[in-house]
């Protein structure tokens, strides 16, 4: 296999790239010691950041799942006027810099009467943890939509047809056939969305700001502590983020990377 110069060249490049990525991780891990790391993680601030990150990302992931299931089903199964345009717009957050999405969210919730109306109901997004959730949702929903759409497209609508003739309403047919058959896609999409949510920085920074012990998620904590030179806390946040990335990547790969299609 590896008998040509070309072969050796390509493998060398792949190896160099691996070394590059490993060295990034290694630098962070060696910039701290187990003792310092443990005390930092035990600190009130990092504890708060971990809790806030886990909570906001869990909620935004659930929101992404709840919205993407019906929306991606519509895109996968039905043809309607303007579908191509709609689907392009729904893909937009994939290409949009999160900072820009964040500015949009800030303006929507901070300056419009819609935002004021929501805030009358107690739904205040600007400079609050709620803002973090909506920022994660806005940035990640397109990923979830894409994964669920391709999952649904990979499942023949005939399963639902058969279920309908056997006594299901269209919704029951979906809930009893296509949805359980999408389990792997849902898991993979959920894990990726959750891990992206935990790492979300730009959009959350714009909407929710970076207030210590209030809107301080792990990435915000990393940013704040780097800015004021508290490297121990910054490294602790970074190490936790690395662990989360590894775990989610592992689960994602275990789930078949992409969805297993029937």
């Amino acid at each position, binding site marked *: 296999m590896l008998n040509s110069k070309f072969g050796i060249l390509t493998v060398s490049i792949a190896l160099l790239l691996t070394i590059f990525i490993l060295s990034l991780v290694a630098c962070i891990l060696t910039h701290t010691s187990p003792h310092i790391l443990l005390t930092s993680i035990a600190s009130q601030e990092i504890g708060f950041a971990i809790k806030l990150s886990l909570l906001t990302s869990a909620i935004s992931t659930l929101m992404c799942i709840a919205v993407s299931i019906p929306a991606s089903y519509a895109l996968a199964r039905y043809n309607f006027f303007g579908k191509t345009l709609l689907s392009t717009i729904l893909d937009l957050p994939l290409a949009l810099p999160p900072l820009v999405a964040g500015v949009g969210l800030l303006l929507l919730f901070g300056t419009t009467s819609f935002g004021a109306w929501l805030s009358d109901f107690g739904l205040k997004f600007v400079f609050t943890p709620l803002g973090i959730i909506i920022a994660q949702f806005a940035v990640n929903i397109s990923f979830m939509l894409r994964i669920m759409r391709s999952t649904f497209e990979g499942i023949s609508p*005939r*399963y639902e*047809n*058969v279920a*309908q*003739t*056997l006594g299901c309403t269209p919704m029951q047919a979906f809930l009893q*056939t296509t949805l359980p058959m999408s*389990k792997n896609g849902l898991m993979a999409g959920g894990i990726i969305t959750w891990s992206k949510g935990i790492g979300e920085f730009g959009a959350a920074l714009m909407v929710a700001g970076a207030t210590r012990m209030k809107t301080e998620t792990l990435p915000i904590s990393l940013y704040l502590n780097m800015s004021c030179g508290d490297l121990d806390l910054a490294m602790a946040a970074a190490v936790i983020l690395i662990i989360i990335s590894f775990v989610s990547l592992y689960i994602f790969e275990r789930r078949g990377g992409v969805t297993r299609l*029937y």
Partner: protein
Amino acid sequence: MIRIEHVSKDLGEFKLDDATLHIDEGEYFIILGPTGAGKTILIETIAGIYRPDSGEVFLNGADVTNILPKDRQISMVYQDYMLFPHLTVAGNIGFGLRQKKVGRSETRAKVDEIADLLGVSHLLLRYPGTLSGGEKQRIAIARAVVTEPAVLLLDEPLSALDSRTTERLRAELARIHKLTGTTTIHVTHSFEEAFALGDRIAVMCGGRIIQVGTPDEVFRRPNSKFIADFVGVENLFRGRSVVHDDISEVRVDGILVVSSTVASGDVSVSIRPEDILISKREIETSARNSFSGEITEVKDMGGIIRVVVDVGVPFVVALTKRSYEDMELAPGTRVCIVFKASATHLF
């Protein structure tokens, strides 16, 4: 029983164009046509998966055009089985009963009974993923008939299977139909299936129904060149076969045809026109089938002449123009036809 009146449906890729069809209670009805003829849309429209763009569907006299599939009492079996991979075989077969809120013990009893009927009892606890095509299709059929539907729709149920399994399942379908008497609509592109199973046949092409009739009518008297070409088989008969010493004797109307295919009971017989010898005198031959009759029709197909000889049943014989002229054949000529037992195909 089922009436489809002027139904049209355009799905872009496939379409149904002004289809009208009446199917009687208890009938085994075949929809025959090439791929892309609109056969599947037609039965999916009967099932209620699609709402027609225009036209109406009646079931037992009631207009069901706008009624959901679940309220139509119609079951469906697809070519690719569509067994739910996340449910066991028992879970698949019992699916319809669970939707209809049938009790647990009754569901189990019915599932056992139907699994027994289709010979899949030993698979009930398995998941569909590991089963063979024939097993999957038996389970799909069991799942469809266990709910005792008014109409059973079969979309190319035998097309994905190997020929041995196809033959066995074809017999099974006939048996189930006889046993339950369920009105059945069976979509296929195989004329053998159509001829062997159908009480009546509708031939479809390009979204239209172009001929409806008994298998004899459709195969003997195709009403268009398309059907003649598509069906493409002459000398197709039905009869009753008795086996003696590895030889089948099939009584077809008045005559007795001998075949080296071993099959007993109700069978279909086909003999290719080019496998039949024709002569004006009795032929001394080892061939087991020899009949005499009169030429009723002569068709010039270019280089080949097709001669219809009535020996009690009409046989089509193909011969070259040259030998046709040498023998001085013409309508009304008395001739003898001969073919081998091995050229007689039973199915």
